[in-house]
């Protein structure tokens, strides 16, 4: 136990140190580059850095810096870009040179602009409309981005972790190794989330989803707290995919009672039934929508606040600023550690609740 705690604290320290070092790097290089009013530039710089961190990217960059000659250097690995634009095109993201150059693939030209791929001409011209939105065509993009890489990593990790655990049950009924830590969590999800919400009879068919979603969200949230700069669950696309699965599972496993309570609520006057039907129907969409927004917003907010506090270090520029923001960041990182588990729990819990509503039997009515 003590060793694990120590490892946790050490990794947290490492996290805060690395993020701050990264930020400092960028901030200082930028400050070096430009001699215009520093205070304001630094703030926008931090803001941009945070906004950039929250976005997905086409390569896996650990850190970047600018040389004295003004050249941008990246410590990064390119990832495959897969786009569909009149045929499937696969190429390395190194062709974009982090958005600095135009990539030429099979006679077509593509350019990264604000982390999106746009089709351009050979010079990389991007035309804008009045609201400063690019009007260039966007090819269908199925690239293996940084987030996709981490989704794959977590999926593989989970697969090996849990199949290994399953194997350890063969021959003896007691868990071994990691199973000792994971089994109580699995049992907790079964006994305190699935069974009370869904019911003893029907919980079994949802267990696979509930367990997977809990561990997936938890692990990927935790990875978001490492210095790797991962931020999977603060992409609305990811939380939408998860919420959609919950929605479809609820909808397609729902029994007659569920639909009856939506479209023709029993035990209320006919007029109320007519009024309630659209509200209830809307409710079925709002529930997973809330799931999606909750997970997305919580993780995003955590990242923004954590990085802002680290950014304060460069704004204060006094001997008291750095230790203060370091302490705050450390405390917040601890809080985020809790939030990582809490959001996974809430997502699982609410999914189970919706499944429970879908299969509930109303014998008492």
């Amino acid at each position, binding site marked *: 136990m003590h060793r694990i705690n120590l490892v946790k604290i050490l990794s947290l320290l490492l996290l805060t140190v690395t993020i701050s070092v990264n930020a400092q790097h960028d901030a200082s290089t930028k400050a070096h580059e430009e001699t215009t009013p520093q205070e304001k530039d630094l703030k926008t710089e931090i803001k941009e850095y945070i906004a950039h961190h929250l976005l997905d990217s086409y390569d896996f960059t650990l850190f970047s810096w600018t040389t004295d000659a003004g050249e941008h250097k990246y410590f990064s690995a390119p990832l495959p870009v897969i786009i569909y634009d009149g045929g499937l095109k696969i190429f390395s993201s190194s062709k974009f040179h982090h958005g600095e150059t135009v990539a030429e693939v099979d006679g077509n030209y593509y350019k990264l602009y604000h982390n999106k791929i746009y089709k351009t001409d050979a010079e990389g011209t991007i035309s804008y409309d009045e609201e400063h939105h690019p009007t260039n065509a966007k090819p269908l*993009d199925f690239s293996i981005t940084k987030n996709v890489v981490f989704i794959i990593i977590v999926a593989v990790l989970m697969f090996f972790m*849990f199949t290994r655990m399953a194997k350890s049950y063969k021959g003896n009924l007691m868990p071994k190794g990691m199973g000792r830590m994971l089994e109580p969590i699995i049992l907790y999800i079964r006994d305190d989330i699935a069974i009370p919400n869904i019911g003893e009879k029907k919980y079994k068919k949802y267990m696979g989803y509930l367990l997977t979603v809990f561990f997936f969200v938890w692990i990927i949230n935790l990875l978001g707290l490492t210095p790797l700069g991962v931020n999977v669950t603060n992409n609305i696309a990811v939380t939408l995919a998860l919420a959609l699965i919950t929605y479809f599972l609820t909808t397609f496993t729902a029994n007659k009672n569920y639909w009856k309570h939506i479209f023709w609520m029993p035990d209320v006057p006919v007029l109320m039934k007519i009024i309630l039907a659209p509200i209830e129907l809307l409710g079925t969409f709002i529930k997973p929508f809330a799931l999606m927004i909750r997970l997305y917003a919580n993780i995003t907010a955590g990242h923004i606040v954590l990085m802002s506090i680290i950014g304060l270090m460069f704004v204060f520029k006094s001997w008291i600023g750095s230790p203060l923001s370091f302490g705050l960041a450390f405390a917040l990182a601890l809080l985020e550690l809790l939030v990582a588990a809490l959001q996974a729990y809430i997502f699982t819990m609410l999914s189970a609740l919706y499944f429970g509503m879908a299969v509930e039997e109303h014998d008492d009515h």
Partner: protein
Amino acid sequence: MEKLIEQFSLGLFFWQLILFIALVLLLQKFAWKPILNSVNEREKGIKNALDEAENARKEMQNLNADNERILKEARAQRDTLLKEAREMKEGIISEAKNEAQVQAAKIVEQAQATIEAEKQAAITDLKNQVAELSVGIAEKVVRGELADKNKQTKLVEELLKEVTIS
């Protein structure tokens, strides 16, 4: 909201959906099912073992009660047996005593009868002998007496006197 929609990445959505569903299906088959089955089996095993222990305890109690009962019965039986035996013994002894007394009485009676008979016989014999001796003595005395005339007369007189008196 606009920013959210702008940020939305179809590719990420696509991969997340595909990978996550694949992960759920794979884990369901290779991890969750075996794990939950094993856990269920273990829980069932524990429950069975507890039930069995409870049953064994109850059975033990029953057995103990039975044993107690049997012991009690055996004890009662032994007591009655002992009692019977004692009674029989006493019966036999008293019977034997009675018989012995009767027998003894008989023997004593017979002995007394024999003694009486012997006594009578002895008395008769003695009487006869005494009579013979008396006669002999009387003969001798008479003979002596009758040798002298005086004495004869005197005797006759005396005898006569006696006769007249009586």
